[in-house]
């Protein structure tokens, strides 16, 4: 343990290592709890899978810091046993049956919900049920929303129904005796205090209290039945919010962690090892081998790295591990080779190598037992530092839209946000959370790398 003590003196190393540990724990947790196939499926599933999620909701913890309490999503379903949902069925004649559904919920938030939708399922043979849907507010005002005939699988997008919206605006006009200067949204009429405040969009006050949705269904067959599900979409969701397709961003952020770490670390380690080996062989054998290796390195220096990588990954729609392979191949003859070569050139002249040669050690024995172990520790800092770069490379490729088409990654979330105008629309959470994760991963690598550099390369330390 004595040897660890000097390392513990460096605070930045400890901070970096702590951050990295958190990420590693999160990665392990993610891999165990959400299988990769499941995450990929969820991420690529259409809106059907995410139907009960609000669109572009901010993370739930925003409510802790904001004086305005944003609504959570409320789901009421006649198929689930809830005290807030009552479904009564009564016969009314020989074939006719009436089903009354009452859904109650308390709304204690400071802004109206983002959307309200009703989903129906019904069973019947030939005549579909007829429903009358009405809305009762805490102040006793009742709105008749719609009379409709539903099919076996039907929905009523309450907040998106233009007819209903026009009707509600007329009602408000009658009640207040003034024409609203703008088209009041359905959610504001259903959840707003009805007085002058509703006439300007900024001053709409939200009416708190118990709300009820009544559905009266007329069924024309004794065996017919229907179920309803009311979704009052909130404006907050989960720990990371949702995106434009109602997906839980949290899933991509969780799965992004192991992908980012694995991509960064494996690229950094394998590139450093390959470059080191090429440098070692080049310096050890000299002559034709050296010239050959050096010319190849120079060719790769002329080839622009990112453009070639982009070309290859657009040509084949490759997944992230093939991208990793291409990155490694393209970087194998990178500028690092020259540095390692210079290092080995110096080392091969050292007395202990001469001694090894004197007792008849073979080329590979000297390379593997004597030269490479000498260089390995000095490589560690640069490996750690370049891991940070490769984490960002993955994100950069995703932002260009040429990353892995399936895997959910941090870069993909940033790309979605960027191209859906999150910065224009003020949906900052969408960019900030993945960016913060990227930045903290990268900074933790940098903190560790810079400190290790001081420890392993003490020449810099004295200065």
């Amino acid at each position, binding site marked *: 343990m004595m040897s660890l003590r000097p390392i513990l003196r460096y605070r*930045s190393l400890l901070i970096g290592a702590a951050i990295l540990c958190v990420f590693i724990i999160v990665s392990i947790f993610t891999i165990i709890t959400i299988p990769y196939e499941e995450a990929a499926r969820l991420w690529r599933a259409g809106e059907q899978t995410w139907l009960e999620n609000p669109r572009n909701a901010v993370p739930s913890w925003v409510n802790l810091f904001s004086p305005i309490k944003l609504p959570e999503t409320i789901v009421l379903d006649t198929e689930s046993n809830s005290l807030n949902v009552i479904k009564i069925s009564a016969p009314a004649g020989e074939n006719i049956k009436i089903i009354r559904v009452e859904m109650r919920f308390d709304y204690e938030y400071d802004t109206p919900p983002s959307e309200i939708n009703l989903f129906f399922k019904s069973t019947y043979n030939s005549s579909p049920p007829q429903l009358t849907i009405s809305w009762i507010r805490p102040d006793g005002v009742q709105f008749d929303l719609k009379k409709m005939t539903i099919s076996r699988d039907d929905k009523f997008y309450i907040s998106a129904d233009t007819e209903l919206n026009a009707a509600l605006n007329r009602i408000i006009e009658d009640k207040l005796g003034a024409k609203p200067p703008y088209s009041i949204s359905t959610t504001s009429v259903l959840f707003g205090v009805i007085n002058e405040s509703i006439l300007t969009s900024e001053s709409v006050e939200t009416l708190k209290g118990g709300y009820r949705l009544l559905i009266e269904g007329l069924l024309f067959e004794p065996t017919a039945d229907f179920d309803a599900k009311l979704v009052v979409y909130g404006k907050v969701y989960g720990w990371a919010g949702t995106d434009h397709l109602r997906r839980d961003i949290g899933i991509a952020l969780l799965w992004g962690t192991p992908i980012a770490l694995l991509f960064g670390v494996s690229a950094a380690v394998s590139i450093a090892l390959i470059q080191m080996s090429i440098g070692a062989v080049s310096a050890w054998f000299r002559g034709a081998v050296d010239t050959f290796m050096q*010319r190849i390195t*120079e*060719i*790769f*220096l*002329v*080839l*622009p790295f*990112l*453009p*070639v990588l*982009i*070309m*290859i990954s*657009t*040509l*084949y729609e490759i997944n992230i591990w093939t991208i990793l392979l291409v990155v490694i191949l393209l970087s194998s003859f990178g500028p690092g080779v020259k540095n390692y070569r210079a290092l080995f050139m110096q080392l091969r002249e050292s007395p202990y190598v001469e001694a090894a040669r004197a007792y008849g050690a073979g080329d590979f024995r000297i390379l593997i037992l004597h030269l490479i172990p000498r260089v390995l520790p000095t490589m560690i800092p640069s490996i750690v*530092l370049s891991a*940070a*770069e490769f984490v*960002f490379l993955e*994100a*950069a490729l995703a*932002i*260009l839209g*040429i990353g892995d088409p399936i895997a959910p990654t941090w870069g993909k979330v*940033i790309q979605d946000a*960027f191209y859906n105008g999150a*910065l*224009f629309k*003020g949906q*900052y959470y969408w*960019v*900030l959370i993945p*960016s913060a994760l*990227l*930045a903290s991963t*990268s*900074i933790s*690598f*940098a*903190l560790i790398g*810079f400190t290790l550099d001081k420890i392993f390369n003490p020449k*810099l330390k004295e*200065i």
Partner: protein
Amino acid sequence: MKIPPVTLLLLKRAVTIMITVVLAVYITIYVANMGGYVDEIVKGEALLRVSQAVRANPAYRSLNETQIRNLIDRLYQNELERLGFDQPFIVRSINYLRDALTLDLGRSLFISSDSGSRSVRIIIAERLPNTVLLFTTVQLLLFFLGLFTGLLLSRKYGSKLDRLVALLTPMSSLPGWFYGLFLILIFASILRILPYGGMVDIPPPTDRLQYALSVARHMILPIMSWLTAYFFISAYTRRTFFLIFSSEDYVEVARARGIPESVVRRRYILRPTLPPIITDLSLTLIASWTGAIITETVFNWPGVGSLFYVASVFFDTPVLVGLVVIYAYLLATTVFVLEFVYAILDPRVRAGVLAR
């Protein structure tokens, strides 16, 4: 007649550099074509384009199906010939290589310039000034700021300022475009004082001064993002570099001889650091001409980087090859000129002692 060793050295270097360029360009041509894989895509698209054009053309309404097929087939063959597909890939690749190396960049497959031209040379010439304007400015700023801050820090080594810069160097582990996202968020989205991206206002101001001001305004955020990202590491590296050079024995000896500090600094510290500094400057300048693909995409800057991106998405081989060739030539020329400069600056090279 005896050739001086330095000329021989330079000649040898010129030949190796040329061979390197030729091979790199050929590899690019090969990759850009993926050994013929792209050809199939391009051919398929050509067929689609031709048949759509024929079927949509009212002049051909009266023809019957066979005639139309024959017509499409003939036009398709013409189109293939125009695109140069009547020869096998190996021949075409050699042709491409010859054209590329003689800077006969030809016509693009899909991309056209803002003025509507299909000439690769015009397309690149249109984008290059934009990239040079932005990234050469950035690189020069970074270089000189880093150089002078580094000098200052190496003199005030151990001071609070020095430690602050050392503390902030991990910021440079995040790339410039990443800071760009945040700067857009702060200055464009929240404060609304600077544009989100692009190069000029839309519509562009007609007045020249207004136009220049508008471009300058659009340059602020990209420049700031790169400075935030790379200033600290650049200053810190320079500082360490100067410190290493100023702790050399000959500097100590010079000091011991009582030579004034300013002369020591100029002659004994700065002079030997000149070749690597010049190398750095020239290579970063060359690199700046390829633009920065991601930064240009994030800031929607119409430069060479975004051209490269668009060209690779559309598999526009001539444009891709053209860009790489120009870059390779620039790099090769720079490397060669640098050999000259070393020969002038470094007496060891001049005497041929350092023959590699």
